């Protein structure tokens, strides 16, 4: 293997001991630190969800006690939101790809990047200790005065964990913003940036602007809970609705932190496997920014029946419909991208198409929730649960899987089994719909969320949902196995297996420590799939399983 010997050392080959990984400032290795930690959290949060779904297969509370059930959904939410979804794509794929996509050697602040992971781990330690010590029973929303006065779990510990993790988010955000402003390769103007970079930019802005508000509200909870300072508790002169305003002022933008990166991923994958430029590039880029800005103005739509003024409700409903527009624009653009393409259906493309379907239907369900009179009925029911899982899981996690498969050759230098990839994507899609579609029906019927027991007439739909959860779990466990296997045994990946246009594909797979042998120059727009010499070569020379 003489070519092997001539290949420059990849970032993976530079030092293998724990210190070489734990003290690295290479953005590609930090991405792996995050990837491993987040995968652990994803399966932990997923295990809580499976336990809940098993409990809900029957109307009575027969598997776990009510206190245990309440801890399960609280921890599922806390872990999935703050320890998986918020950092998911930015901290893993974003960390790995952002410098590569803009032709930089690293992020602007490599040490800050590593520090952000340590802060993340510190926050995780608090969260995990609170889990082991007995859990939290406030729901991921920490509503007061339940969380400050009445909940008997380890609320302060978990809140501090989330508080600390917030700093890691802010560090990543600042790092990304500066990197995108200052480190773009010559010729890489704003409107030549891949959409993934645009969405990272929009995400980073929201991270930096919204997270401090979450931090403030969590600290106020701890102050009230531990020191009895009256902020939210009316008995101490506080106002419980104040907490909801503060919490959703962060948490609504946070759902855009969670979905924008997913939009970025599919905006890379769809053009690549259609061999077509992204339809309406500028509209897609600018709509990401519009979502980031409008996202700050809609928090009150979580509070239509909270006792908030009805006229505030009307205003927030109006703004919520406005934020639906840029999402609709994106869906149209993605769909039209396929037109006149040369479409192939490798695993990342399957995930991206499933994203498109699930995001579209999840988004349309959002129209019901934004419509005031309907929200009064379906608020705090399974309809809401179904809606946000369509966006967060059907949308974001599916996009994450699309991205993970798309860039896996770049991350590892190995190909995975295409057959298993396609099977897993399909199983996930079917399992997802079986799990969450019945929840729309349940919500419309009036089934409240966060219920340990429920009236027997709802059982049919709950059984479907629970069965789906098992299928979904299989769909997520499969990639763990075949991707893990491919890391060691998969066929060697070429530099650009999919024949994609991004700069990240112009360097070796896996990339050398400083990303590029020669600094790239850019003289063409993104997604220039008409460019000569691009060839989709992934599975022609290295057919499945052949190594």
């Amino acid at each position: 293997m003489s070519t092997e010997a001539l290949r420059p050392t990849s970032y993976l080959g530079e030092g293998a001991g724990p210190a070489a990984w734990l003290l690295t400032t290479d953005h590609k290795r930090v991405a792996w630190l995050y990837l491993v930690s987040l995968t652990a959290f994803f399966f932990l949060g997923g295990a809580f969800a499976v336990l809940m779904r098993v409990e809900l297969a029957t109307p009575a509370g027969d598997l776990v006690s009510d206190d245990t059930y309440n801890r399960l959904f609280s921890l599922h939410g806390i872990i999935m939101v703050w320890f998986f979804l918020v950092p998911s794509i930015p901290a893993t794929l974003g960390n790995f790809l952002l410098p590569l996509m803009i032709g930089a050697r690293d992020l602007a602040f490599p040490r800050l990047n590593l520090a952000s992971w340590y802060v993340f781990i510190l926050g995780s330690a608090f969260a995990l200790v609170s889990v082991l010590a007995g859990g939290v029973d406030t729901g991921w929303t920490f509503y007061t005065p339940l969380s400050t006065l009445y909940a008997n779990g380890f609320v302060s510990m978990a809140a501090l964990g989330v508080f600390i993790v917030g700093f890691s988010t802010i560090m990543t955000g600042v790092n990304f913003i500066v990197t995108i402003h200052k480190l773009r390769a010559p010729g890489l103007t704003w409107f030549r940036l891949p959409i993934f970079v645009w969405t990272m930019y929009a995400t980073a802005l929201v991270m930096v602007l919204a997270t401090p508000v979450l931090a403030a509200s969590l600290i106020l909870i701890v102050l009230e809970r531990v020191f009895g300072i009256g902020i939210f508790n009316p008995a101490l002169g506080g106002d419980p609705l104040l907490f909801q305003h503060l919490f959703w002022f962060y948490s609504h933008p946070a759902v855009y932190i969670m979905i924008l990166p997913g939009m970025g991923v599919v905006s890379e994958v769809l053009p690549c496997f259609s061999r077509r430029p992204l339809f309406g590039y500028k509209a897609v880029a600018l709509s990401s920014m519009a979502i980031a800005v409008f996202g700050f103005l809609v928090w009150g739509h979580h509070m239509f029946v909270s006792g908030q003024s009805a006229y505030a409700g009307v205003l927030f409903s109006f703004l919520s419909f406005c934020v639906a527009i840029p999402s609709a624009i994106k869906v149209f653009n993605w769909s039209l991208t396929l037109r006149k393409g040369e479409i192939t259906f490798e695993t990342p493309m399957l995930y991206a198409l499933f994203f498109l379907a699930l995001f579209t239907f999840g988004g349309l369900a959002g129209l019901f929730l934004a419509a005031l009179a309907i929200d009064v009925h379906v608020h705090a029911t399974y309809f809401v649960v179904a809606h946000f899982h369509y966006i967060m899981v059907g949308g974001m996690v599916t996009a994450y899987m699309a991205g993970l498969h798309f860039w896996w050759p770049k991350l590892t230098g190995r190909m995975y089994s295409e057959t298993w990839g396609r099977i897993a994507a399909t199983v996930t899609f079917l399992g997802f719909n079986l799990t969450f579609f019945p929840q729309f029906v349940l919500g419309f019927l009036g089934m409240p969320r966060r219920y340990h027991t429920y009236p027997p007439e709802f059982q049919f739909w709950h059984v479907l949902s629970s069965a789906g959860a098992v299928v979904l779990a299989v769909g997520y466990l499969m990639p763990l196995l075949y991707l893990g296997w491919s890391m060691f045994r998969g066929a060697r990946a070429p530099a650009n297996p999919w024949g994609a246009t991004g700069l990240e594909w112009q360097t070796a797979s896996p990339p050398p420590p400083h990303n590029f042998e020669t600094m790239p120059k850019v003289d063409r727009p993104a997604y220039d799939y008409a460019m000569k010499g691009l060839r989709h070569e992934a599975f022609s020379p290295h057919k499945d399983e052949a190594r």
Partner: protein
Amino acid sequence: MSFGIPFTPPEASSIAGSVDTLFYTLLAFTAALGLFLTVLVVFYAIKYRAGSKAERTGERARSLPLEVTWTVASLLIAFVIFGWGAVLFLRREHPPPDALEIAGLGKQWMWEFRHPGGQREINELHVPVGKTVIVSLASQDVIHSFFVPAFRVKQDAVPGRTTNVWFTADEPGRYHLFCAQYCGTQHSEMGGWVTAMPPEDYAAWLENQGKGDTLAADGEKLFRALGCSGCHEKSSKVRAPDLAGIFGRPVALDNQQTVIADDRYLRDSILNPKKEIAAGYDPVMPSFDGLVDEGEMQMLLAYLKSLSPRATTKSEATQ
């Protein structure tokens, strides 16, 4: 219902039908749009699969007229849905007149109701069909939410304030009552049934329950027991505002402002009397914070309201 599997919730209130009309219209629209996009994507995926003979020449990957069209169309459709939802929603603010007012108190983990005649029930609520019922909600501890799916109504009960929800049942029957706001350990057990019955049956039911004292009468007793009457009655030596007809009336404050004496004002004046001082009076009233619980607060408020008949329903609606 088919094979015992429910697909739709019962429609049992005056507003349920109109909410459902909006729901089903939106369902038809979103299903049509979602299916159209699905079919479009599948059609493209098949037609333009790699190696197919489809025509691919011409056209750049953008079309300004198309993009403007779908943006404007989305906006217009969004505004129509918004307006429709908002108009139906704002009915919450305007209950029909002559409503029956029932006090609802949420506490971990039960709903307690008191009818105007003093009848109490726990996790059960009996209401007459065809008569508007206003449930004025308070909470003893954490936030709860009064939710009757069959009526399409939901309202949080927030500690430290009074909120109201109204409905007019129009179909006799027994309907689920849920707590929709997560409230701790036995959240899923906090609920029961709303029984809507013909007015004559309701009257008979009330009769059967025996008459307790009315809420207002209990409030009056409390008003004396706590010593409020010592200052607030006309014969009193201490100069304190006369409370006859107070509810719903404007009150001039010593800081030149004027507030309406609604639920919020009366509650605050009892718990935190130094906050808003009526003009011309000395701030001598002690706070009753910790001395009256939410149930007693509801009695006091009912008594104060009973001092100004006919004022209730108007400012009732706004919380």
